[in-house]
């Protein structure tokens, strides 16, 4: 009998070129990249007088360092400018065609652009010098983050020597409450399995909750697999996946799309596939989440208090105390964006809630920064009048980029302030030195923006 395979096994096995004693040489089909983790890879290549293996397998954007309120000339930081110049030189030198620089119509966050253009396709392997590469698992691409040395290897050889991960399945069953979002699901999962629970594993998210979820929602989940320690966060493909890729820039068309669709439907684990570890959670147990500490596992339901067993140094950094109610935390700023929650669906969700609440930015909220994931998302939002809803409430409507998620540009959050952020990491100093990040869903972020604090969504949105 043929061995039953997990989705991870299927994609992995179909890319093995050579098996070594304790590792594999696998073909990497796609490598998206950005300005921060590529310079040293190109210079290594140059030093060895080599050239890229295949420029068709590459796509680059500028996103980490870039301003969200201006073009190249508005970059004030000389180091940022130098990094961007270096990328542009490399793009020109090696004639890389898929390049979406700052201010270009196709610009955006690498993980948003890579899927919305169809550069990443189901069943492919992909790496990127960025840990949130796990995002592509949502469309059944075996994708993971690597450091610059491995970027360099893939750039020059199109392959990578890797060890095979173990298989973990996380099932979430049931039906989510309408105000509980994919973000809440993944934060809840991380709180249950810890930030290292997924280390050494490829996670597959399965069960009714993910089947019911939109493709963009699945991306929010897979995106944060790394926050549970897993490099890979896969989800089986279905009709929604096929629909998602229909008509995108780099997706097949016509007769080829039919074959593609058939292939995509095969991207799931076999019924009796064996996982090394399995968890089952229930949708009913998940309420909107708010992180209170300095890692994504330090999260609780919005109706709860800060737990007794909280890490002292986390709470000290956050300026919070054990037993404090989450709903008593006063918020200073709101960031709606990042590769986790900046897709059109996130902005639609947020604007819909804002319209329902029908309130303006709360007087104590100093800033609400809305940063779409790409120019494409921005255009769509503007066509739908979403930008106007935000602007009318007093929010800032920006150009795409990583922005305040990691504050490498000028979107820096001030020390001591509490930030309701739809991003993925609440690490110390991540959004600015001393800034106190609370990771939340777009819905909770909008409520914080209009009420100045965290409120249980169902209390105001009946």
């Amino acid at each position, binding site marked *: 009998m043929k061995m039953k395979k997990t989705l991870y096994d299927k994609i992995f096995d179909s890319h093995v070129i050579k098996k070594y004693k304790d590792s594999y040489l696998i073909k990497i089909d796609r490598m998206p990249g950005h300005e921060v983790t590529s310079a040293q890879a190109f210079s290594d290549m140059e030093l060895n007088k080599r050239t890229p293996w295949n420029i068709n397998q590459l796509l680059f954007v500028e996103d980490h360092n870039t301003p969200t309120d201006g073009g190249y000339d508005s970059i004030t930081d000389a180091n940022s400018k130098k990094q961007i110049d270096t990328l542009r030189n490399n793009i020109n030198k090696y004639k890389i065609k898929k390049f979406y620089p700052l201010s270009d119509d196709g610009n955006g966050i690498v993980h948003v652009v890579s899927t919305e253009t169809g550069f990443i396709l189901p069943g492919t392997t992909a790496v990127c010098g960025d840990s949130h590469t796990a995002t592509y698992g949502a469309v059944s691409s075996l994708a993971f983050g690597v450091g610059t040395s491995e970027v360099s290897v893939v750039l020059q*050889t199109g392959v990578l020597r890797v060890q095979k991960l173990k298989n973990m399945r996380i099932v979430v069953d049931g039906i989510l409450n309408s105000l509980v979002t994919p973000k809440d699901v993944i934060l809840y999962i991380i709180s249950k399995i810890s930030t290292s629970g997924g280390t050494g594993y490829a996670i597959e998210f399965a069960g009714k909750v993910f089947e019911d979820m939109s493709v963009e929602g699945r991306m929010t989940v897979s995106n944060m697999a790394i926050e549970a320690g897993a490099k890979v966060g896969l989800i089986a493909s279905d009709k929604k996946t096929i629909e998602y890729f229909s008509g995108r820039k780099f997706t097949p068309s016509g007769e080829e799309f039919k074959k593609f669709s058939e292939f995509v439907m095969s991207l799931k684990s076999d019924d009796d596939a064996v996982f090394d570890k399995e968890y089952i959670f229930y949708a009913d147990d998940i309420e909107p989440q708010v992180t209170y500490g300095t890692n994504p596992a330090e999260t609780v339901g919005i109706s709860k208090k800060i737990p007794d067993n909280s890490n002292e140094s986390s709470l000290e950094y956050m300026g919070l105390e054990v037993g404090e109610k989450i709903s008593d935390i006063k918020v200073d700023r709101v960031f709606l964006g990042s590769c986790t929650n900046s897709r059109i669906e996130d902005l639609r969700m947020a604007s819909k809630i804002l319209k329902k609440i029908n309130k303006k930015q709360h007087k104590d909220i100093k800033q609400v920064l809305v940063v779409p994931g790409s120019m494409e998302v921005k255009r769509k939002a503007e066509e739908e009048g979403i930008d106007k809803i935000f602007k009318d409430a007093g929010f800032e409507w920006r150009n795409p980029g990583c922005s305040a998620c990691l504050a490498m540009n000028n979107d820096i959050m001030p020390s001591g302030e509490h930030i309701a952020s739809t991003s993925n990491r609440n690490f110390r100093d*991540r959004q600015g030195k001393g800034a106190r990040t609370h990771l939340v869903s777009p819905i909770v972020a909008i409520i914080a923006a209009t009420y100045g604090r965290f409120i249980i969504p169902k209390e105001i949105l009946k």
Partner: protein
Amino acid sequence: MKKFKDKTYLNVAVWEKENVDTDIIIPSDYLKVIKKDGLGNYLFDSMRFIDDGQLGKLSKDRKKNKDFFLNLDIYKDAEVLIVGKNFGCGSSREHAPWAISDYGFKVVISESFANIFYENSFKNGLLLIELKKDEIKYLMNYYNKEEKKDKIYIDLENQIIKAGNKEFSFEINEGKKRYLISGLDEVGNILEEMKGEIKKFEKEQEKKYPFLYNVNN
């Protein structure tokens, strides 16, 4: 890549903190570089220094947090870092191992490491060793900040550590070990041995899955 010196005695520093993420190892301000060297100046920046740093400002010109483990006299010249579990979680930035190596560390020992950080470290000649909880506890206790101890002995070839009167063995992937000891050029090696195989594999892929590999490029 630089070679790892096998069978060596090294100075130790201990930091008990768990879940040290790569944002702590090197904050994003310092990722705006196009070279790898000099990043040791900014290692653990926000905890190691009291003042605000910037690229180009050297550690000797900074105001140090005297309580931080790296600033303690007893851990001066440390080459081995013994640290709490899940070290290196979060961002994939290779600047983290670059900063650790550039500071002068050659080995990091912990109960566990994050996957991407683990791969990145070996690519830069930085040896990571995973030990069991009680072994880490012994080492943290032995090299505590109260009393200066002898150096730790690390034998990579035979996968042995000696400290005080104890000896521990550790597991390591054979490929990674060879890679560290030889300082091999990985890309050169792949191209030399596998170029034909890779090309052949790609041709087969294109034939089998044209809709994945021949699309609108």
